[in-house]
């Protein structure tokens, strides 16, 4: 290629880049409108009249809605519950799913494929088909002292259901990754006299941290925003309320106080956004589809 031709090629490339940027910026602006409206409105004073015209950009930085929300007793309760529920659930769910995925990918036992097919089958069922019997099962677990309603309205019950409903999907996801770890690597452990647990902890887990991390982050976000199960299982217990329940309730009780609803929404959203921005470069998205397509 002559220098002249190369220059031309470069200019054309610059112009194309410029157009892509412009197009994406406009698209992103339109995409962000709901967020801009939410942010702008959280700085408004709604009281009984809605501000007219509606705002896209904030006209003032009035943090009183945030102040109001933070000083509300039940916001702190909801925040505490959401943090505790989400973190405990993710840790337990990730651990149990990793164990299961190891069993289904590395150990031969009769009926393995059939059992795994049952796991896959449950994934096709609509999420809350099971909520009524789950409620009944939890209600009937009454052997723990001090809980007359069984596990209804208790943190333990909610976490149990969260962990249980996430196992099949996570096992499927992780099994795909564990299968890609070369068998030869585990042989060195076997030579040293180690069993399955040594292979699991010393080879599989360390090599799969990107996959496990990705799964953990998606699980974290999912449990953080979970609404329906929480509403059915702990919605009646004031002390167990979670952030999504609180948001919906704020909207129901103060129909016109949108600044409170939006301030609380933004507060609930900030941790998730920070988490995603930090982790986005390390997420292994490709693997999400791999298991499904190759199977």
């Amino acid at each position, binding site marked *: 290629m002559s220098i002249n031709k190369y220059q031309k090629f470069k200019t054309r490339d610059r112009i194309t880049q410029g157009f892509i940027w412009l197009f*994406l910026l406009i698209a*992103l602006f339109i*995409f962000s409108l709901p967020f801009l409206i939410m942010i702008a409105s959280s700085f408004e004073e709604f009281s009984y009249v809605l501000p007219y015209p509606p705002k896209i950009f904030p006209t003032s930085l009035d943090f009183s809605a945030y102040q109001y929300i933070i000083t509300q007793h039940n916001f702190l309760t909801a925040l505490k519950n959401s943090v505790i529920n989400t973190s405990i659930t993710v840790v337990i769910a990730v651990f149990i799913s990793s164990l299961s995925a190891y069993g289904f990918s590395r150990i031969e036992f009769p009926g393995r494929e059939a059992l795994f097919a049952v796991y896959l089958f*449950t994934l096709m069922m*609509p999420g809350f*088909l099971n909520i009524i019997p789950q409620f009944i099962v939890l209600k009937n677990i009454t052997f723990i002292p001090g809980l007359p309603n069984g596990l209804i309205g208790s943190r333990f019950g909610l976490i149990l259901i969260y*962990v249980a409903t996430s196992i099949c999907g996570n096992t499927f996801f992780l099994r795909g990754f564990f299968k890609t770890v070369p068998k030869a690597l585990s042989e060195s452990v076997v030579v040293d006299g180690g069993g399955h647990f040594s292979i699991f902890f010393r080879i599989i887990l360390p090599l799969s941290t990107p996959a496990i991390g990705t799964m953990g982050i998606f699980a974290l976000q999912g449990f953080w925003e979970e*609404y329906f199960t929480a509403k059915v299982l702990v919605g009646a217990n004031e002390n167990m309320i979670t952030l999504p329940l609180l948001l919906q309730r704020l909207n129901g009780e103060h129909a016109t106080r949108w600044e409170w609803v939006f301030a609380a929404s933004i507060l609930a959203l900030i941790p998730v956004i920070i988490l995603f921005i930090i982790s986005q470069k390390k997420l292994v998205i490709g693997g999400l*589809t791999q298991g499904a397509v190759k199977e």
Partner: protein
Amino acid sequence: MNSMSLRKKRFHKGLRGWLSALPFILPGLILVTVFIIYPMLFTIRISLSDYRIVTGDITYIGLTNFKNVLFETKEFWYAYRNNFLYAIVTVPLIIFGGLLFSYLVNNLKHGQSIFKVGFYLPVITSWVIVSLVFKYMFGNSNTGMLNYLLVDVFHILDDYVPWLYREWTGNGAIWVMGIWKNMGWAMLIFLAALQSIPKDLYESASIDGAGIWAKFRYITISAVKPTIYFVMVNMIIGSFNVFIQVMLLTSGNPNGTTSVLQYLLYNRAFSKFEFGEASAIGLISAVTIILLTVLLNKIFLLDEKESGV
């Protein structure tokens, strides 16, 4: 070796397999059995019964619940129709938008992560929050953003529209929200697929004078075909899990014409305490999803054979 000892050997090998697998699969298996598989079977039983949750009485009544759901009111058919409409309207647009944006973002030399995070933001925002924002935007007076723009700024309409109180504008709002919320997810998945395409394929194509559209058509689309299928199946199944947006935006109004199966199930179970009918609705949606998945798999496998992949 005779068959007796062979069978014995196989049995021992199987037993050994189970014994070494159990520590790994048992915790998950117990939870799945107690909280997923048993409830599923129990749902079938409830759907065939008159079930009183307070007393725990459960009486077998055959297919009465299914009959009531299917033929007593039109509510079920509206909801069923709306799930399909949601899939038909939103899935193609989500895939198209996701492909377009991922392709453009992938071609950027700088600032990819701004757009990646920006378009993904709706995905990580909870359904409750986005539903509340959309409820505010589609408000029925001049304070709703849409009414304000259409009536007061651009004078396209003479009067404010009660968007969320009418059948088709209500459904429209639910669709718009679904597209907006899920497009970033499709984009991220497609972006991962695009990044696995070798770069020199594009480079040699541009030197040959291929434009952005030709490259998109002949290199990109054929490489991401399996991913398109993955996104499509996920989104179609997801279309049968629509719930929170309906509950918060329209509550199925007017007269259940904007309802969906999951909302109908929720309403029957937890407002009317008709657990039998609710379970029947759940089972009908489950069967629908299974049939759809099987059907989509058939179509896709056929496609794969034809193209010789």
